[in-house]
């Protein structure tokens, strides 16, 4: 985790905005290989948007080949409502830069089928090649997007009911009338954020101090969902001095020292070049131009990939390597639910099963009959899913 402490909110915002501009420019996005940016709303990132707009107007960055995905949106308020996140993004960012509307993705809180909207959103992220940089703000209770305390750290884009405290806090934007505040929202999951190749989190102000302490100094805990950031190989936190109030002096000094030493050595903490520039070769397209209304797949057991995340595997792998088995359903659009798409085909995910019953090692043949069914049958059962993965 890279951790930057700046004097005040403006300096922290400028740091993040500069970083994003540098990332985009170094990436050199093209129409076929865009930079995919995940974006938050709220008061925290306002300063970042302001600087980004300034830099766009100064000609330092172009958003022509940038694709954006927003974190969340309320359910049940009109899209052009002054408090909708569509309006927020339009007002503070999209209307001022040269981003094309086709490249903007925001969850539709008025979709007829909200569940399908979520599935489709994940599919769109996949289709865009995954998110290169997810910018996020930190909630007072350590939430990220609308993943409030208790959200699964393996969660994906879904419908969320807002906590009472959030509704109360939001009522200031809705004439202080609790009845007008949306009670539900669509949000990306913690897992969705963590799958981005890089996550940049901002925490500004003393109100965020406790959450920052929990997420940085304490363990991974679903009550402070942003603490899952500790499992991400390329995360960055940028905060102002006020937000460090609850941190140990040692922690603050440690991260400040690291930054100073690195700078003194002329060595910025940077990402591996593979991630900074993206893959040189463009992954074979898996995009179909139109998205048919997605069907809900039967729930799949999700093994949290958090547990597999190590810095060594440049996690998550951007491209699905060409696989003899197409990752397509017969209808030709993406399978979004399968673990298989992240599996590299050159080797199996785990050692092959060698059927071997403990019972066979027994001396007494009578025991053999008293134990489990025939190993041949078992093997047959096991081999069916296994071969689909490893073939």
């Amino acid at each position, binding site marked *: 985790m890279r951790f930057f402490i700046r004097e005040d909110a403006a300096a922290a915002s400028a740091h993040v905005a500069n970083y994003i501009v540098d990332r985009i420019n170094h990436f050199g996005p093209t129409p076929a290989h865009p930079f995919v940016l995940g974006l938050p709303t709220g008061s925290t990132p306002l300063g970042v948007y302001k600087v980004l707009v300034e830099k766009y107007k100064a000609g330092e960055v172009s958003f022509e080949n940038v694709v954006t995905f927003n974190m969340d949106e309320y359910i049940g308020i009109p899209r052009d409502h002054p408090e909708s996140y569509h309006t927020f993004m339009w007002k503070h960012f999209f*209307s001022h830069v040269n981003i*094309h509307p086709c490249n903007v993705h925001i969850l539709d809180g008025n979709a007829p089928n909200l569940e399908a909207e979520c599935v489709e959103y994940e599919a769109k992220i996949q289709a865009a090649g995954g998110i290169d940089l997810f910018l996020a703000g930190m909630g007072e209770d350590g939430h990220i997007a609308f993943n409030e305390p208790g959200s699964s750290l393996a969660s994906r884009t879904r419908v969320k009911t807002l906590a009472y405290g959030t509704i109360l806090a939001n009522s200031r934007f809705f004439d202080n009338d609790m009845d007008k505040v949306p009670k539900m929202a669509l949000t990306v999951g913690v897992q969705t954020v963590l799958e981005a190749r890089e996550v940049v989190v901002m925490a500004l102000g003393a109100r965020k101090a406790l959450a920052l302490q929990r997420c940085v100094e304490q363990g991974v805990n679903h009550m402070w969902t942003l603490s899952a950031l500790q499992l991400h190989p390329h995360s960055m936190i940028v905060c102002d001095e006020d937000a460090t109030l609850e941190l140990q002096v040692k922690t603050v000094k440690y991260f400040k020292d690291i930054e100073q030493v690195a700078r003194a050595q002329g060595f910025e903490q940077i990402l591996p070049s593979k991630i900074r520039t993206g893959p040189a070769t463009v992954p074979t397209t898996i995009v179909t131009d139109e998205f048919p209304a997605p069907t809900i797949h039967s729930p799949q057991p999700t093994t949290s990939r958090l547990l597999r995340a190590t810095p060594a595997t440049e996690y998550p792998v951007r491209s699905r390597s060409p696989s003899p088995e197409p990752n397509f359903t017969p209808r030709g659009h993406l399978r979004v639910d399968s673990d298989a798409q992240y599996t590299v085909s050159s080797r199996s995910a785990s050692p092959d099963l060698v059927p071997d019953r403990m019972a066979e090692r027994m001396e007494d043949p009578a025991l053999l009959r008293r134990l489990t069914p025939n190993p041949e049958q078992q093997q047959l059962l096991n081999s069916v899913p296994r071969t689909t993965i490893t073939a």
Partner: protein
Amino acid sequence: MPSLVRSASPRHNGITKLTNCRLVRGDELVWDDVWVSSATGKIIRSQAAFYDELIMPDEVIDLGGRIVSPGFIDCQLNGAYGFNFSTLLDDMTQYGKQVRDLNRKLVRTGVTSYIPTVTSQTSDLYKGVLPYLGPSGSSRRPHDGAESLGAHVEGPFLSPTKNGIHNRSVLRVASSFADLEEMYGAANINPRCPNPEVEVHSPSSSSSSSSNNSSTSLPSSPVSSSSFSSASSSDAQAARNSTIPVKMITAAPELGAMTRLIPELTSRGIVVSVGHSEATYEEASAAVSAGATMITHLFNAMRPLHHRNPGIFGVLGTNTTTPSTTSSSISTAAAAVPAVATSQRQQQQPQQPQPQQQQPGQKRRRPYFGIISDGIHLHPTTVKIAWHAHPQGLILVTDAMHMVGLPDGRYAWTNGEGEHYIIKKGSVLELEGTGGTIAGSAVTLLECVNNFLHWTGATLPQALKAVTATPAAMLGVQGVKGSLEAGADADLVVLSEAAGEEGRTELVVDEVWKFGVRVFERKKLV
């Protein structure tokens, strides 16, 4: 392979985004963008266009912090560039051409809509010219220039003692609506049918037919009813408005049956303005209660404010009907005059409420009022007093004669009674041989705005409101004209602030946009 990023669509959508500018929104200047479409001629809701139609503007214009105002609306313009609306030509087709020429020149001053005004004239002249002066914006062609919102007939039902430079011999007294029809031509103040009593009061008869069935004698087809839908309570009435050449009538309410005729006119969507009048405060109040919503060039050609009878000016001073001491005189005035007529009317128009009849003490709308801030018609302090009396009602008008836009000199002019000459010196017009009678003005609306700014200390948006939103509301076209909100017609003026004499700020018209297209751009001084 298909690219993941779709670049801006190559097809042209005619949308221009004006950015880095300050918009006149209400009483404030707001840093914001405005998106205009030359395809629809309207200001578009940019956020919806972005998310729904996935469109980007064809062109982005950085205005460098300049001010964007809605296009100006002049509610009293007698002519310009040598052409007087109160003129009968031998070949009246030339009249239409002259009007179109004027429109193209006038728009360069920032006036994108106006009310061509015809002074007190003979019936023949009204009948001849009014068909050419009706609403002209229905074709929505940007390069036609300024757009007429309908004609203003300033007379001839005026007080002979407050005639100004109007020819006293043509002034008349109306005793019935038929007198008005006879004077202006029935087709010019009625939607379609020469018999108003049948036509206007038949429920919904004209809503669809009249808009499709414009009289062939009119040079202009009606404005689509949708663009006027916000203007009036009913669509039927909106459709009627659009076909009537006359939009506004200035009359002296104390004469003849004029006060009683006001509801007849307003029911047709015609604005009744009190002016050139000897009306007392009570008479003016009765006219306002009956539905008059405007005062023509306040202070000029009317009784001055007297402390015991404040005259027409007095109706700005209160937003309730008069207190009990004088309410009796009003109620008698209001009740006695239309006693016969209303009983007839009510049989034919049961659906027409009588909104103007109000109880004493109840709030009534104060009228709008025109102010000529040319520095000659009114003392600066007078303008300031009027503004403070009723800031929401103040409308700056030029009352400019056809000499506006021409060099100084001596110009022939007739009010139908012999040849006269008007001497133009700058923006001052005097009738020759009268020892200084003011003969209208020769100011531009922008000069009026600049004077008003200087004299009253009003903020820029407040001053610009007096030539945009306020006149639009007076004419019932709020939200369509005089507005920068989405859905309004994209008539814009780009203004820059220049340092004038004595350090005062002068607005300068840099660009004029009509229906989403730039039709004028000031030459850059190199």
